[in-house]
């Protein structure tokens, strides 16, 4: 009996201090600029963190809530476009020239609203229909940005977007931007991890496992799902703001259905069972996207086939491990873990 309770206590603490891996990763990420050049900082790690945040919003919906949304990148795009629209950009006749500290919350609020409304539509459906309706929202937004010149500047999009600069720091410079991105991504990661054991996250997992029983326990199932979409939209919005600061421009290409599907690939390759999955998936995706071209040329193939390499990598991972790299890692750990005395009791 005492044994069992100790075990419970140990598990409750595992999130905080028990596992060394998260702390090692955190230290490495913080010290990274000492050994890395600007290209790696922004193009590899910065991109990994930004795409990781957007994919994390999908992980939250899919992993905790069982809802696969293909519009998470679209929500990020809404945040980016809104920042360009309310803030300062090269399109003087469109942008409203608000300072960044007003444009940012406005863009986040509108992106969250967009995701919430989209979610309210999507929760009326299940499974493959949720995927279809969210993809339709993403595709509609893409075509809308392409054709609307009054707000989105059509095919050209918005360029020369002004990024924050305060306290004497240009936050777009590669080092400050890396730390800013790391801070936001870290906060998002811990928020999702923490929420998994808070009433809201637990209830969401309950909704995923057994919506009918949740209703029979007093929960308004669809309200919970919509709230999850709202929270996920806020995360995606943060990713979108970072992305628009990073590129200083946004165009319909940034929110194409292709890019929407990339977010799904990132989340699935990394694994949607734990919040670290999307970041692992984003790292693999960014590495492949950046180096596959050179790698293919190196071995004498047409560099333009780099998407093929990404596709094959995706197939291999999903074939061997339906729950992504995280699933591989967990199975490896289980098979190599030293048998703990009370561990055997776990499967009585």
């Amino acid at each position, binding site marked *: *009996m005492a044994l*069992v309770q100790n*075990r*419970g206590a140990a*598990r409750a603490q595992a999130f905080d201090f028990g596992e060394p891996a998260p702390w090692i990763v955190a230290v490495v990420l913080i010290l990274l600029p000492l050994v890395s050049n600007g290209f790696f900082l922004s193009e590899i790690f910065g991109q990994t963190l930004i795409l990781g945040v957007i994919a994390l919003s999908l992980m939250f919906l899919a992993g905790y809530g069982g809802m696969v949304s293909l519009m998470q990148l679209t929500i990020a795009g809404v945040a980016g476009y809104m920042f360009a629209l309310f803030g300062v950009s090269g399109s003087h006749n469109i942008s409203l020239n608000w300072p960044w500290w007003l444009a940012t919350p406005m863009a986040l609020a509108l992106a969250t609203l967009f995701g919430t409304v989209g979610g309210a539509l999507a929760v009326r459906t299940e499974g493959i229909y949720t995927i279809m309706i969210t993809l339709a929202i993403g595709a509609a937004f893409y075509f809308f940005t392409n054709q609307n010149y009054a707000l989105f500047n059509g095919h050209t999009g918005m360029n020369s977007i002004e990024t924050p600069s305060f306290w004497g720091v240009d936050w777009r410079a590669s080092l400050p931007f890396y730390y800013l991105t790391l801070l936001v991504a870290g906060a998002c990661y811990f928020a999702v991890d*923490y*929420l998994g*054991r*808070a*009433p*809201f996250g*637990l*209830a969401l*997992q*309950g909704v*995923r*496992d*057994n919506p*009918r*029983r*949740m*209703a*029979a*326990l*007093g*929960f*308004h*199932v669809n309200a*919970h799902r919509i*709230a999850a979409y709202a929270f996920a939209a806020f995360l995606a919005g943060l990713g979108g703001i970072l992305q628009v600061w990073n590129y200083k421009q946004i165009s319909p290409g940034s929110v194409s259905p292709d890019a929407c599907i990339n977010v799904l690939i990132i989340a699935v390759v990394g694994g949607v069972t734990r919040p670290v999955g999307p970041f692992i998936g984003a790292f693999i995706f960014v590495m492949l996207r950046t180096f596959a071209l050179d790698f293919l040329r190196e071995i004498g193939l047409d560099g333009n086939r780099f998407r093929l390499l990404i596709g094959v990598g995706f197939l291999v991972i999903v074939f061997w491990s339906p729950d992504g790299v995280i699933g591989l890692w967990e199975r490896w750990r289980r098979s190599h873990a030293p048998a703990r005395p009370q561990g055997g009791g*776990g*499967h*009585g």
Partner: protein
Amino acid sequence: MDSVAQRLANVGSSAALELRGVTRMFGALAALSDVTMTVRPGERRAVLGSNGAGKTTLFNCITGDFLPTSGAIRFFGEDVTSFPPYERIRRGLRRTYQISSLFPGLTVEDNIYLATRGVSRGRFSFLRPGLSDPLKAATRSLIEAVHLTPVAQRKVAELAYGQQRQLEIALALAGAPRFILFDEPAAGLSPTERRELIEILTSLPSHIGYIIIEHDMDVALRVVESVTMMHNGRIFKEGNPQEIEADPEVQELYLGGGHG
């Protein structure tokens, strides 16, 4: 909305559960037809009948999983006919399922914690409960009540069948239940587990009434004071356990088989 005076007037006089002419059609098939019954607060009643008699459909109509095609349902005087399930649950109605309906990916403790959270405020809380959280204490005492303390931290998928049935009951006892619907709680239980189940049912606080669907007469007739017999979606007999057991028509239709 009823006025306060109307509500107060209902407090003493109203039945816990009142069904008036409840009919539920599935296409042309009447799973329930014209069911009228009144259950007092604190009353314990068995609903018996062969498979397809409409017992589970009756439960689904009472909880709001299905809306009745016609008829009215009142819960402690309040007309809940068109309420969604969660609104009825928040008013003190509970149910268990014939086939365990749990959250297999979560631990026993989290399952019960969700049940206590579902009928209180803070369902959307972003903050983890502390050790002093009153709902955590309620969760622990419920775990104890159904003898699941040794497996509190296990995932439900790892539990033995009998333990899952115990958990099923614990979920229905969370919060402040006023009336519970038990759908074949003894199904598949060992004799020892059945004795434990009878003990749990008979030791419920006397203000909590329930309806139990049960095929095991030894369990059913021991834990109730009244019996409703159903056949083909209709009520055809009501009485106390002794009357029902002695009734020749009931014996022929229902008890005649394996329950000598």
